């Protein structure tokens, strides 16, 4: 089967790759572009470990084809920090021990960042429902929710 040539922007860099029409965006990020931060936990859009944003919209990259990335702007966990300065969410996750094994963390950070960009002042319930598509098996979510809400508060105070 012939491959498709895709040109897209990932974390600000223009990149291109060849992909099989059946390969997902997640496959392409991981296997073609060596961006292994997004994880495949299920391949069915249930766990959120592969979360990225495409043109600003939060998506499960396992549910999107690589070919559909043509001309899009994609942000992954690798693009969250600004050079050597961590995003406040990343810093807060470390300080709060909002991760144990860390496999869900890239997806949760991408999703949480997306939440705070849309809603700088989420309630606990809003935060829990926004992150309901991101499974974590280790933490029971307590420290994750606290880390997100505390980051939101600090970002509000700083702005």
């Amino acid at each position, binding site marked *: 089967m012939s491959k498709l040539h895709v040109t897209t922007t990932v974390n600000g860099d223009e990149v291109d790759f060849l992909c099989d029409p059946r390969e997902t965006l997640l496959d392409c990020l991981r296997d073609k572009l060596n961006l292994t931060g997004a994880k495949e936990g299920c391949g069915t859009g249930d766990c959120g470990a592969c979360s990225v944003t495409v043109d600003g919209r939060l998506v499960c990259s396992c549910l999107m084809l690589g070919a559909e990335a043509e001309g899009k702007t994609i942000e992954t966990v690798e693009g969250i920090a600004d050079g050597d300065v961590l995003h406040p969410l990343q810093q807060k996750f470390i300080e709060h*021990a909002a991760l*144990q094994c860390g496999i869900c963390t890239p997806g949760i950070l991408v999703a949480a960042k997306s939440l705070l960009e849309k809603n700088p002042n989420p309630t606990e319930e809003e935060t829990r429902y926004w992150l309901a598509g991101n499974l974590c098996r280790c933490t029971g979510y307590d420290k994750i929710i606290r880390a997100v809400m505390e980051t939101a508060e600090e970002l509000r105070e700083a702005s």
Partner: protein
Amino acid sequence: MALDDRKTDFTFVGTRPNRPDGLDKVTGRAKFGADMSAPGMLHGAILRSPHAHARIVKIDTSKAEALKDVKAVVTRADFADVPFKPGLAGEFWNVLENVMAGEKALYDGHAVAAVAATSALAARDALKLIEVEYEVLPHVTDVDKAMAPDAPVIREGAADYSVPEGMHPNVVRYHESGHGDVDAGFAEADLVLEDSFVTEATHQGYIEPHACLGLLGNDGKGELWCTTQGHWIAQKTCAALLGIETSQLRVTASEIGGGFGGKTTVFIEPVALALSRKANRPVKLVMTRSEVFRATGPTASASMDIKIGMKNDGTITAACGEFRLQGGAFPGAPGDMTAMCAFAAYNLTNVKQIGYDVMANRPKQAAYRAPGAPMGAFAVESVIDEMCNKLGLDPIEVRLKNAAHEGTKASYGPRYERIGLVETLEAAKAHPHYSAPLKPGQGRGVSCGFWFNHGGETSVTLALSEDGSAQLMVGTPDIGGSRASMALMAAEVLGIPYENIRVTVADTATLGYNDVSHGSRVTYASGLATIKAARHAVEKLCERAAAKWDIPVEAVKWENGCAVPSGPNAGDFDPMPLADITAKMGRTGGPISGHFEATPEGAGVSFGTHIVDAEVDPETGKTTITRYTVIQDAGKAIHPTYVEGQFQGGAAQGIGWALNEEYIYGEDGRLQNSIFLDYRIPVASDLPMIDTVIVEVPNPGHPFGVRGVGETGIVPPLAAIANAVSNAAGVRMKQLPMSPPRILAALKDNG
């Protein structure tokens, strides 16, 4: 030199620094199992049985092998051809049989063949060309049906000496223990209650599927990268299954995306190595989520009968339990553990417990966080709760009245050393949660839980660098922040800052043998090993100072990161900091390192008490957990935030097990819910905040008093939630999960 054996006054231990691997884990650069690749790498895929029980008549791989992208195909014949090490028997044989089916496919999802090809898509396409002829056999997936006289036999001769005569061949292990005279005990009781309980199998549900990258040559030398709780067991098992020498296979543990017991064995690793040997190229194998559910580690399902006798004042006079556990098509269901743990929280004069390990046509069960204990606690603590209701007694007071303490003869045999059960119950009683008012429709439940904890074989090396920093090599994969606790313990002994210690999970070629990260053993055993290795290095540091000062080494002690004279008679010398000694170590005797290689035996058993409030919607049968408090004895919390995390994680998994999670098999013996959409683990919007109270009753078997905390947290939730739900719904729930249809049915039956 003087080194206190037991320490109670800490500088670093008990603080909450950032974990050393935090940056890697929040930036996406931490390498997990599927994140590694190699030059020339092939991709593997595994063909799995669609039948619950079938004889494999013939496998024709010729069409797949004819594809140009396919570089190797393996079946069981590729394992059987290798010159096995003598005595590939027992668990090694079981693992081989599970890794690749032999004469029969024993469960839906059992591996029957594998392919390595130039891409993952090509490998998956090639699987469709492998033709397998099956002769479908009768199957059984339910534990009670698997023990019935007419049940199909999974495998003749699998039972060991412990099984009484006359039992079905599917019963493969039998356990009986206890003490006293239960009949006499029941005769003394004012109330005797008997009931039966059922729990379904659940999956550990780690978010990272199994993944590995294997390379093996025909010279018998190999490399394996894999996500595992224990790379030495992976090394030992793969070497045995492939007929190579253990030491010739170097295994590196990736970062691990959750395990909870399910990554304590191998599944795809020997297959990747077999494919690699045949293709002479590295092979990467990554499971899909569906493969994880169908073919890896669920916990056992259980069917249980409990009988307890109680006096009107709440004193338990006798307790009996029979626990039947189904662990898939292989021996290993922890019927013995369930039996031994079930009554372990109580000081009983008369107790008897029986456990059965039963085979059925399901995947080979694997350990899951305190394996076997949660089911038994669910049954026993439910009966105790019901008796409290009948006698009008407070459930915590009744547990306090019967609680095990130091010196109690445990239900499973030994006498307890210092334990913290009473302290957790007292803390529960005093907690504001316990006296908070409930709203209409809500119920409150409490439960105790017990787990043994484990020591296990452990090696640690600590090497000092010339600038006074330290590198610590441990062999227990870091599942939940253990690098932080190791660095804290090393800092405590060495007296240098936490940040100056680099903790590495060493590969099998660079450190001696380590048991897997299981049994809540990491902070206990690797921690003890770290402390002893650091003390070993401190001894050498003191020797160098003594030589410099020209005084006996006994006249030097270690204080705040410096060698100092042990007293006024030892001489008048300025403290000599660690970095001053290491700066000159090359000229004063050579490198300074500390080691520990042994099997710590004093793990110290662990107890917890949980309080939970649940609200049941009578219209839909849906349960909402409105408040949850975990109280558990940690002995000594090295990094309290990560201890809280273990408590919260255990409770959350318990909530899933109690309310939603279950393996659902169809009449055809096939798993019906093999994706996360259908096997629903708790999501953020399902849960409340989970409050924690860390009780610290030091473990006499650890220099700093540590008890493992990882597993006990999943023991009380099933019962605590069942008690809360039963109290809210006004009907006793005896089957897990308490999913909405089951609750609606129970409400309907109750009128």
